[in-house]
């Protein structure tokens, strides 16, 4: 296992390389349009001036990193939080449906896993369908779920959360089935010699054994849940949320807005995964786990 210090230099140098490549690509990709502009304006800028211009177009093909950073900073920190151009507001809209969907999905996943572990019929008949359900490109269903639920008067958070639920229940269900079955035969036998009832075995052996699996799969689930919430916002006609910002940016060619919405989405994803990871570590420690 590489230590943190071993990683930090390669990671930062690769990230720096990405930024450099990004700048070069920005110049190359924006150059044709800029040349066109200059020709029409009858200007003949020198090379340095030209490069600066390619990086300050209002609707560039590829915005330079600093343009995205400025836009992100303005829309995050300088705008009032209630403005619908504020990224904080939009991220909050997406986050709320992500969290609701994640909560539903985790609960559903756990219930399914408990059912599968305890009822043999469910194991044989439901498990193949759970796996098959993920080969279906479910995001394709998103527009329909939203339009249909809107037709029967359910709008707002719930439809988006349902899509997140569908995406996030699977990792939890699969992880929890594995986790609830992780106690070894000797442990189960020990519970048997204690004359433990099935519910005692469940609460005192299976549940504690499954907790590490739960948090690992919750990390995957929360990221999937965010993707569901973002895609769920696309067909609502760009009202609010990160997905709506993406769609609005695509309609009006506001490339800088698209990129800063992407950055906002990535920040939210990273924060969510981190929070789940920290929660997992706290629970692990509270249960008496020792750092391996």
């Amino acid at each position, binding site marked *: 296992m590489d230590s943190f210090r071993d990683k930090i230099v390669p990671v930062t140098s690769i990230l720096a390389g990405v930024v450099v490549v990004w700048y070069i690509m920005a110049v190359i990709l924006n150059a044709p349009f800029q040349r066109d502009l200059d020709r029409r304006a009858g200007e003949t800028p020198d090379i340095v001036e030209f490069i600066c211009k390619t990086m300050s177009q209002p609707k560039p093909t590829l915005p330079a990193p600093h343009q995205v950073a400025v836009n992100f900073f303005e829309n995050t920190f300088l705008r009032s939080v209630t403005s619908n151009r504020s990224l904080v507001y939009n991220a909050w809209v997406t986050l709320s449906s992500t969290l609701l969907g994640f909560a539903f999905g985790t609960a559903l996943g756990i219930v399914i896993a408990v059912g599968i572990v305890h009822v043999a019929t469910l194991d*044989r008949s439901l498990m193949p369908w759970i796996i098959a359900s993920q080969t279906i*490109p479910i*995001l394709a269903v998103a527009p*329909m779920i939203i339009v*249909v639920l809107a037709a029967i008067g359910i709008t707002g958070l719930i439809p988006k959360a349902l899509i997140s639920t569908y995406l996030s229940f699977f990792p939890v269900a699969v992880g929890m089935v594995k986790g609830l079955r992780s106690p070894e035969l000797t442990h189960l036998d020990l519970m048997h010699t204690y004359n433990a009832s099935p519910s005692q075995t469940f609460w005192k052996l299976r549940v504690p054994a499954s907790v590490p699996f739960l948090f690992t799969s919750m990390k995957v689930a929360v990221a999937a849940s965010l993707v569901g919430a973002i895609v769920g916002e696309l067909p609502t006609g760009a009202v609010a949320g990160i997905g709506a910002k993406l769609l609005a940016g695509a309609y009006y060619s506001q490339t800088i807005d*698209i990129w800063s919405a992407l950055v906002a989405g*990535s920040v939210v994803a990273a924060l969510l995964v981190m929070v789940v990871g920290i929660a997992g570590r706290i629970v692990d420690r509270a249960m008496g786990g020792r750092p391996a």
Partner: protein
Amino acid sequence: MSDLLSLSSITPRSWQGYAALVLLAGALLLWPLVNATPGYGIGIAALIFFLLLLAIAADNFPPAIGVVLLFLGAHGAAWLLLAGITGNEGTARASFYLLLAAAWLLAWRCVTILSALRPTSRWAATALRLIIPAIFGAWILIIWEAVTRGAGIPFILLPPPSAIGVRIANSLPILAADVRQTIFKAVIFGYVVGSGAGYFAAIAADRVPFLRRGLLPIGNMVSALPIIGVAPIMVMWFGFDWQSKAAVVIIMTFFPMLVNTVAGLAASGHMERDLMRTYASSYWQTLFKLRLPAAAPFIFNALKINSTLALIGAIVAEFFGTPVVGMGFRISTEVGRMNIDMVWAEIAVAALAGSVFYGVVALFERAVTFWHPSVRGG
């Protein structure tokens, strides 16, 4: 035989059987089945009751005949119920649902018996492994059909599966064109290029430890990000046609492949690597003869993950702009025109394509990693 079918033999042996008997009695009390004329003919209704009673009684028969009778009784009754409700939409009464519930309970009993079976021959075990989930799937469709028709749910909200099936049969040319555009152009190209790029990047990262240490944390982090969001950018860069969708697919499939291959290349044990060293094998010999085969399960895991990601990426990218063909395009426009049955048809095709894609990758995996314990079933 007459003894077997006498009334006294209809004593259930499972709680499902007792519950089904109670539901049957309830259905008789709440007669008729539908609020419509002519509704169910008396002969059909009697046949439904007979089939259900037969299924309840079948538990007392020898297991082999019992399971078959249980299966035929429950599903025959369900089929008659569905056939009768067609044309009488929205008129179902409590009695109809009670009979349906009875049939469902008996099918559950049938599945319970089937899953308790421990067949000795391999052929039978495979058949069982397919039949049990198939019954479950069939009942989702049966209940969907019965509820949408029975309660008269408007087609715009949720069309019954039979209507979707008719829609698929009637619009095969459109669906074929969409599949060609989305899957054969965008998905396959993007999947091959994206997975291939991830694979070679992983080998490069393996050769240069500096790259590996840098790329792995980044790859792990990127796989948590909502990469699907680059779709509008790609549509702007590469235009409305399939190239932009392929670009989204490439980006989405690259990182899972990278992370999994790097993990797989680390999977071969020290002992085996030392053995290769004693053979004085070069880096490339070790790579091709030991480490890549050892990484195969990881690589196929990534290929499986990517098979679903690729479809999702291509379809969602089409929401941001396409020529007037393609699965994502069809879904978003037909939703707007409230042709929900066409949307479901497209989803069914997408689901089928996704499962076939996954299945092909899984078959390849079995063929290539035949030596792996999980395939040998040791």
